[in-house]
């Protein structure tokens, strides 16, 4: 699995499915691709669920930038 970001993971998964759809994949390879696909799905789910919403505001004072919580 090469994907690092959510977007890449989704793209890679699309590619895997497309390759499988072409139907010329040897059995062993198709099973490993299936495994990759499942891993990617897990990764995406994790990426999605793990990220907590956070809100910060920038304090730009005397040329110095600071991040502060908002609300």
């Amino acid at each position, binding site marked *: 699995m090469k994907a690092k*970001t*959510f*977007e890449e993971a*989704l793209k890679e*998964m*699309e590619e*895997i*499915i497309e390759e*499988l*759809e072409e*139907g010329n*994949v040897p*059995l062993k390879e*198709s*099973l490993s*691709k*299936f495994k990759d*696909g*499942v891993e990617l*799905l897990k990764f*995406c*789910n994790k990426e*999605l*669920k793990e*990220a*907590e*919403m*956070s*809100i*910060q*505001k*920038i304090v*730009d004072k005397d040329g110095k*930038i600071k*991040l502060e919580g*908002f*609300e």
Partner: protein
Amino acid sequence: MTEEEAESKLQIKIYSVDEIATYIKSLIEQDKCLQHIWVTGEISNFRCSNKGHIYFSLKDEKSIIDCAMFQRAAQHLVFTPQDGMKVIVEGYVDVYKPRGSYQIIIEEMKLTGQGELYIKYLQLKAKLEKEGLFRNEHKKPIPKYPKTIGIVTSLEGSVIHDIIKVTKRRYPHVKIIIFPSLVQGNEAKHTIVRGIEILNKINVDIIIVARGGGSFEDLWSFNEEIVARATYNSKIPIVSAIGHETDFTIIDFVADKRAPTPSAAAELVVPNEQEILGLFIQLEKRLCKQTSKVIEIKKQRIEYIISRPIFKRPHTLIDEYKQTLDENAIQLKQIVINKIDILKSELKGVDGKLNALSPYATLERGYSITMKEDKIISNIKNINEGNIISTIVKDGRIDSEVKRKNEGQNI
């Protein structure tokens, strides 16, 4: 005399009405000056069609020109035009052939009450457009799944809360970084520019520049050239969301995407979690379906191979060989027997011939053979008197001593 005859006699070309109208139309369409104009005048004879198109005449003390503003453009009007209003219109001149009239097709219209500021807006817009700042090829794609969203807006008012509310509802997994800026007044433009620059340094995935509704003057900061240029120079895609749906500011043309309102900007930028989960389920289904399809195809091939007769009844092949072998063996046996028979009969013939030639048969007939020391005597010269010779007759041997030899005498 027909038209054609007149034509050929006088050597002139007689045109149809439409040919002339089309020619005039093309002349006007080719005129660069008439294809982008700003005209000021007073509205008269205002009419509105039920499809939302508006028609009126623009006049001054000396002249009058028909105008049309189609629904696509008219929907953005922030005031209701009325007869007697003084306006500035932006558009182009077109010929309406069915009525033989020329008219201004209006893209934008403002009240002249807003006067100089509006002209400034139009001038800057024309300048930046000419420079190519609005071109589509400069627009950066909006990321589908941003992790961090930067917002340049005021902390006062409902705008920031609207954006946060929509974000929470759609996708509560992003990081929001707000740059609190002024959105009105002389200083506002500098804080907006600073916000865009700082968010570029922090490296957020997308920037929303937003402001709530207000008058043309209230929204002026977003028509400032430095704001437009900062937006153009941003490495990070920018979505503009200034005022209401009907408000257009310069930043809207430069931004990578314009959202009609701040809430709409959040809708546009933040993905929908439900949709993503739906996408996951869809992808999972497709993945499983495709994999089992691959397996199914291989299975079918195996089944096809297994179903071939050779695998179904493998002994048939052996049986066939066995049968052939048996048949061959029988044939071979027959051939050998035949051969033996032939040889046997050949041998018989030879035996008879052999018998006929044998010296013993001669003995039977009364002849004898005379030998000396086991050699047949066929010549008298080899015999001397006193030699012991043997005479073989049919039923025995007689040994005798030579008494006398008579050469040349047979009997």
